[in-house]
């Protein structure tokens, strides 16, 4: 499985998956193939706190022209790692302007994953989306 999937490729993949059982198995595969974060990066500073599973996130805007987001994240839960792979496809290599325009709820709904990304569910994933957006907003502010 390719690790540098685009969101359009994911839409295509998910169209062939009949139900949650199949989507879940696919997410598990994505999760196992997620590039690992070095153990030393799994520290308190990089930890995105969640009630259920933890996520460690290392992200920065690369000073390309225009700047683009580069990030690696890992969770201690495999299915969350699969969902992180979806977010990497969604946010990776995007400019701050593109990132702030992305409606993650809509994307997750289209993928049939809406119940896995909600502010009420309080897993590390949603906090991670918040953190990525915040980085993008800060980078956009610096650029203007």
């Amino acid at each position: 499985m390719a690790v540098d999937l685009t969101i359009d490729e994911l839409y295509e993949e998910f169209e062939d998956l009949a139900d949650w059982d199949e989507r879940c198995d696919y997410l598990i595969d994505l999760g196992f193939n997620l590039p690992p974060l070095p153990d030393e990066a799994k520290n308190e500073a990089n930890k995105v706190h969640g009630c259920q599973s933890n996520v460690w996130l290392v992200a920065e805007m690369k000073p390309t022209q225009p700047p683009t987001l580069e990030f690696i994240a890992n969770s201690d839960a495999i299915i969350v790692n699969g969902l992180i792979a979806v977010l990497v496809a969604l946010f990776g290599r995007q400019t701050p302007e593109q990132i702030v325009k992305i409606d993650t709820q809509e994307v997750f709904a289209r993928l049939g994953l809406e119940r896995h990304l909600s502010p009420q569910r309080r897993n590390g994933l949603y906090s991670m989306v918040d953190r990525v957006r915040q980085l993008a907003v800060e980078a956009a502010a610096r650029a203007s």
Partner: protein
Amino acid sequence: MTNSTPQRPFDVEAIRRDFPILQQPLPKGLPVTYLDNGASAQKPQCVIDKESEVYENYYANAYRGVYRFGAMIDEQLEETREKTRQLIGAKHVEEVIFTAGSTMSLNVVASGWGRRHLRPGDEILLNETEHHANFVPWQQVAAQTGAICRFIPLTDDRRLDLSRLDEVLTPKTKVLTVTGMSNVLGTINPVKELAARAHAVGAIIVVDGAQSVPHIVTDVAGADIDFLAFSGHKLYGPSGVGILYGKQELLADTDPLLTGGHMIDRVYRDRSTWAASPAKFEAGTGPIAQAIALGTAIDYVSSIGFDAMHAHEQQLAEYAHQQLNDIRGMRIYGPSLEHKGAIFSFTIDGAHPEDLAQLLDRRGVFVRHGHHCTMPLHDLLGVSATVRASFGVYNTRADVDALIGALEFALGRLRLA
């Protein structure tokens, strides 16, 4: 007490038929395997029907109208109050207060009794296995009064270490608050002994009965409990209603948490006086239909009998314990079976509890994962989360088998088998 005299022989299949939610097939024909009774229990048809009956036939506000609907509501609420008195073995019906649930009941005690009686340097005796609902309110009242929270030492298997109780239970202790049954470990605490020892140093005892009241016989007068909190929804009753029991003389010396309608004696322009208990603690419109249907739930569990329910659940616990322990990498937290009820919190080496819970759901097996509102306990266990399977009266060996099958499926998916 009437709560241990069953009116019918114990037949789990007949009991299951009383719960419509268990009858439905899930997609792909999977049966419902509901093992989250520690969080909330399912409702028998008679409870569901009773709540509808109230709304369809005689709903009105409580304790306000003289018209016939109002009178019927009052009568039925008082019937539930009396049934609750019998269920928990209280002496007086005025000692039974309707609340929103265990959390509210415990907050009434911590705030209403605690702020009135605790002074700087007084001690509140807790332990690290308590649910946040019996933990945080005491931290709050300690911060407000200058009282100090202390903790009963635990044994290696996380039971209260009564041999070391005297280290922390002293004349400085003003309140000992303890769960009747741990919501994570299932540990059943010796509340009668704790009550006697608390009273010996002049402290009161508060029991969080959220987990114990639905599963074991409760006898507040016999065990000399000062305050008891529990919820209707874990007792196969409606959500939104709970009970606070308090000894009459202590309730007289406790401030209400909420003030407003119904709870007053006389309101003047500049001050008010309170009605007597229970009205004093029942400000505003409560969960009327829910409280009435709680009476039906109490009838239901009483007809089965607590001894029969407990025996059934202990047999299941024994079977579940055996079967779970056969899984490689299994760690069940807490004491051995003789000290606990049918609650299992566990981890499996290499598997995250969130993954396990999600994969179990795919097999129709419903369990909880996370810290179960016991972060200090999980700190002590050294894990951030566990999976919890908690059993109720309608669970069977087939449910245990479904749990084991689903765990094996999950471990396969997680490449651990």
